């Protein structure tokens, strides 16, 4: 652990989808350089929390602070400019663009444009297959390759905090292993990673700490080791299948 300084601090947020309250008084802290997981079943509010950090949704109450700045009222594009980029659930690569053009979109923000070249090298170094397929149309890639592209596109934005939503959904275990290896390398470069998973066992092997969300509330948080013990005892309580 490099330091215990909070990079992102979420304090008592309430978030609504229309009239439906999706998050209830949620607080969470991410420390610089760590790998933190959000675990929870479908509809537990994980993606809502990610979207709130990204600025696609805004909390009705509470604040989201990134490196000391309140970002809870900012729009998504400004938040990307500050250094938070999300790899969305379902990868959502631009289907009819080439791999290369997808990556170039990642460096759209002016602050990332000047670093386009070194970042592109970095992404191709991390995922050599993307370099091989750089002229290929994104929709023709396999699921694993699309996920690599989504992560690579996110890195092109030069983030200091990466949010990754359901990275391993629908992918083969061997591909998931590769992706986690890549995440470790990304983390070594100093990028903080927050990721959302349904795969509890696997997630607790890979992360430092985790928060458990249930129906829009944080019910547990702690180090991965603590939560592993907890999980064994209270499997039913989590309401999550270990799907590996």
């Amino acid at each position: 652990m490099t330091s215990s300084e909070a990079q992102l601090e979420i304090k008592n947020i309430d978030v609504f989808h229309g009239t439906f309250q999706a998050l209830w008084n949620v607080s969470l802290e991410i420390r610089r350089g760590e790998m933190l997981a959000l675990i929870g079943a479908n509809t537990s509010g994980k993606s809502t929390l990610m979207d709130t950090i990204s600025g696609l949704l805004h909390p009705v109450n509470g604040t989201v602070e990134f490196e000391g700045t309140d970002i809870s009222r900012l729009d998504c594009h400004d938040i990307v400019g500050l250094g938070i980029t999300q790899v969305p659930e379902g990868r959502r690569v631009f289907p009819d663009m080439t791999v290369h053009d997808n990556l170039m979109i990642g460096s759209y923000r002016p602050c990332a444009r000047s670093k386009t070249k070194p970042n592109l090298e970095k992404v191709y170094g991390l995922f050599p297959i993307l370099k091989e397929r750089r002229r290929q149309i994104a929709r023709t890639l396999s699921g694993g390759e699309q996920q690599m592209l989504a992560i690579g596109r996110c890195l092109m934005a030069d983030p200091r905090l990466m949010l990754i939503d359901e990275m391993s959904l629908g992918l083969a275990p061997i591909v998931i292993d590769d992706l986690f290896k890549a995440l470790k390398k990304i983390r070594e470069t100093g990028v903080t990673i927050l990721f959302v998973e349904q795969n509890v066992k696997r997630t607790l092997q890979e992360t430092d700490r985790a928060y458990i969300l249930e129906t829009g509330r944080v019910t547990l948080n702690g180090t991965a080791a603590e939560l592993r013990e907890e999980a064994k005892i209270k499997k039913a309580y989590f309401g999550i299948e270990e799907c590996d």
Partner: protein
Amino acid sequence: MNSDIITPVLMGVMLGGLYALIANGLSLVFGVMRLINLAHGDLVILGSYLAYAILTLFGLDPVIGLVISVPVMFCLGFLIQKYLMSRAFAISTETPLIIAFGISLIIQNANQIAWTPLSRAVNTTYAQESFFIGGLQLPLIYLFDFIAGIVVMVLLHTFLKGTYLGRAITAASQDKRAAQLMGINTNRVYGYAFAIAMISAAIAGVFLGMTFPFTPTSGTSFLTIAFGTVIIGGLGSTLGTFIGGIILGVFQTLGGYFFGSAAQMLVVYLIVLIILAVRPQGLLGSRG
């Protein structure tokens, strides 16, 4: 093969360049915002009236006059998107359609007040001249329409593929949410997309005005032609729009040649119908 038939085929191909020119803006706005811009035809005609005004008031060649009308239409497009459409989109998906219809009516009536319902034409010296190819005599303006169609297609394609803003427009059209997450201000990008569609409408208006006489209500029939062009060519492809325009143009002139001018548009819309049934995404369109 009867040499008579070559004339309508050539005319149709060149006319297709004009149709592609008219359809570009409709295709861009639909592709990016999923908005069927019912005012597009009237905005093109507004471009024709601008060219007419520039010619009659200043005596300026309408093609050179584009240095005035292009910025005007660009700003108009940006403002329509920013102050009307983006707010309408926040209400529901149908609201922008109604707004577009409203803009269409306003432009038609404003043009009636300003220019009377009489038919006008952008008369330049070269608009009435002919050129000869292989012993055939063809109107020179049709050749200019075709060249303008190619030039605008190439420019638009280069812009969309080669610039950051162009790529952002393409990205926002393929996945708005993912584009936002990559730091693209989609509202601003929509504004630029609408403004660029208006530039192409301004250019289309000039060439349309030199090719055909127009009245304040001509926009409706050219909107229909633009629809046909986009349906044939497929959305989201500048080359597709161009080819769509040519197919539409050729079937129109051939329909006129074989069945008389009363039936020419019937032939065109039969072709549109067949393509919709056989290949709904259009010839070069990507699968939705």
